[in-house]
């Protein structure tokens, strides 16, 4: 895994250098080293000399498609994983940028490592973390531990079925096998079996922790409205106070606005400082959309998102 990451990293750098020297793009958005262990940071590179700052490892968790909205007037080279590429296809269907404005450097993803799971697995502060083969080595002041990376993956990565980005300009690394680690969404199946009371209690408990920082919204490539419904004062959909009902309102609508648009990258959940479970909402909507309208986000550049179109034969048993 580690050698594979190295090889991919080199090829990302080569490609970025080539693009920047040819002036084919104005800037490259990729992942760079961060000061904290188990983390990377998005970086923006404008000159060929800077490409050595680009890295690739199992901690490249951000969805970089989010940053495209800030660079609408530039030609952008973007390092994308499978989920990021799907977000970009979904965004292009919503005409968020010109087709020739992007150069996508696609990386077949090895599934990303959940830093919170790793932190929970060790006692004490992690000062250094790196990959060795299929293991994550974490070091602290008085410990060194090797963890099997496959036990520490993000839930959204475990169920991912499109790890190799499609419709990219350049693919670095060989395509990976497209089978999810767990066949279906085990969490959602489990949750659906519970009674409505239990389900509501869980949702209530999760959303009650929300501090309304809106990090989940900020980090999501699909949340690009100039004025979000929570910020709108006329009509005022939602009060500013910390009432549980308002928190629930926010979480229902944030998730529902992703219907047929969410690529399932899980960035919302990773961004949440309160560790609120969010993907069980959006993934459910993805499953619904698949079942009702046979639509998967970001697979096809031509098919319109399900709520922007209709079929005469749509199901309507629920309508009186």
């Amino acid at each position, binding site marked *: 895994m580690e050698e594979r990451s190295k090889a991919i990293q080199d090829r990302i750098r080569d490609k970025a250098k080539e693009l920047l020297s040819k002036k084919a793009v104005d800037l490259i958005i990729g992942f760079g080293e961060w000061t904290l262990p188990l983390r990377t940071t998005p970086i923006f590179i404008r000159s060929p000399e800077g490409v050595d700052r680009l890295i690739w490892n199992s901690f490249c968790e951000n969805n970089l498609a989010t940053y495209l909205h800030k660079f609408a007037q530039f030609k952008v080279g973007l390092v994308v994983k499978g989920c990021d590429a799907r977000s970009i296809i979904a965004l292009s269907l919503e005409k968020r940028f010109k087709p020739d404005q992007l150069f996508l450097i696609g990386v077949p993803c090895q599934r990303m490592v959940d830093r919170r799971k790793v932190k929970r697995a060790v006692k004490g502060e992690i000062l250094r973390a790196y990959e060795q083969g299929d293991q994550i080595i974490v070091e602290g002041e008085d410990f060194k531990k090797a963890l099997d990376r496959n036990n520490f993956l993000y839930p959204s990565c475990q169920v991912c079925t499109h790890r190799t980005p499609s419709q990219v300009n350049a693919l670095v690394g060989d395509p990976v096998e497209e089978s999810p680690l767990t066949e279906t969404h085990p969490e959602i199946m489990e949750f659906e079996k519970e009674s409505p009371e239990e389900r509501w209690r869980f*949702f*209530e408990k999760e959303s009650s922790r929300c501090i309304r920082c809106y990090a989940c919204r900020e980090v999501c490539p699909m949340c690009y409205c100039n004025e979000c419904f929570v910020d709108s004062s006329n009509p005022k959909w939602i*009060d500013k*106070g910390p009432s549980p009902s308002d928190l629930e*309102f926010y979480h*229902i609508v944030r998730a529902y606005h992703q219907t047929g648009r969410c690529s399932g990258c899980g960035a919302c959940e990773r961004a949440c400082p309160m560790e609120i479970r969010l993907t069980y909402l959006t993934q459910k909507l993805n499953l619904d959309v698949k079942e009702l309208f046979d639509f998967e986000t970001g697979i096809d550049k031509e098919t319109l998102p399900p709520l922007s179109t209709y079929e005469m034969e749509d199901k*309507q048993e629920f309508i*009186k």
Partner: protein
Amino acid sequence: MEKTWEPKILAFLCNWCSYAGADLAGTSRIQYPPNIRVIRVPCSGRINPLFILKALQSGIDGVLVSGCHPGDCHYISGNYIGRRKSATLKRFLEYLGIEGERVQFSWVSAAEGGKFSQVVGEVVQDIKKLGSAKRFVKKENSRSLGVEGQEKTF
């Protein structure tokens, strides 16, 4: 006289069919339960899911959205679009644990006064079985509708 609980139901009726259907029910003297408060909207496709959620949050016990039959939409495709939104929203609310019967949908044409009264009757029955809305209702803010101990103003 003993006061019994009656559900409060918000009905979004499309201007071209269901609202006229409700009108017909009225002019034809067809009885239906007085639990609904009608909001006339241009089209069932106009219903922003936020309307429904806001209603539920404000203490409404049930929401009825009614539009033209498929193929009859004044704006050609509004009700088809609305149908997709309704389907996904209803499923999502059920998944979260909000009773699905609180949000109901129907097609009622301008000629179906009888059907309108029947639909309203069914919805009221369903909601009476469920009882008053508890989940998701906002309680603490006195400015919002449906405050405990205070008369609802709509």
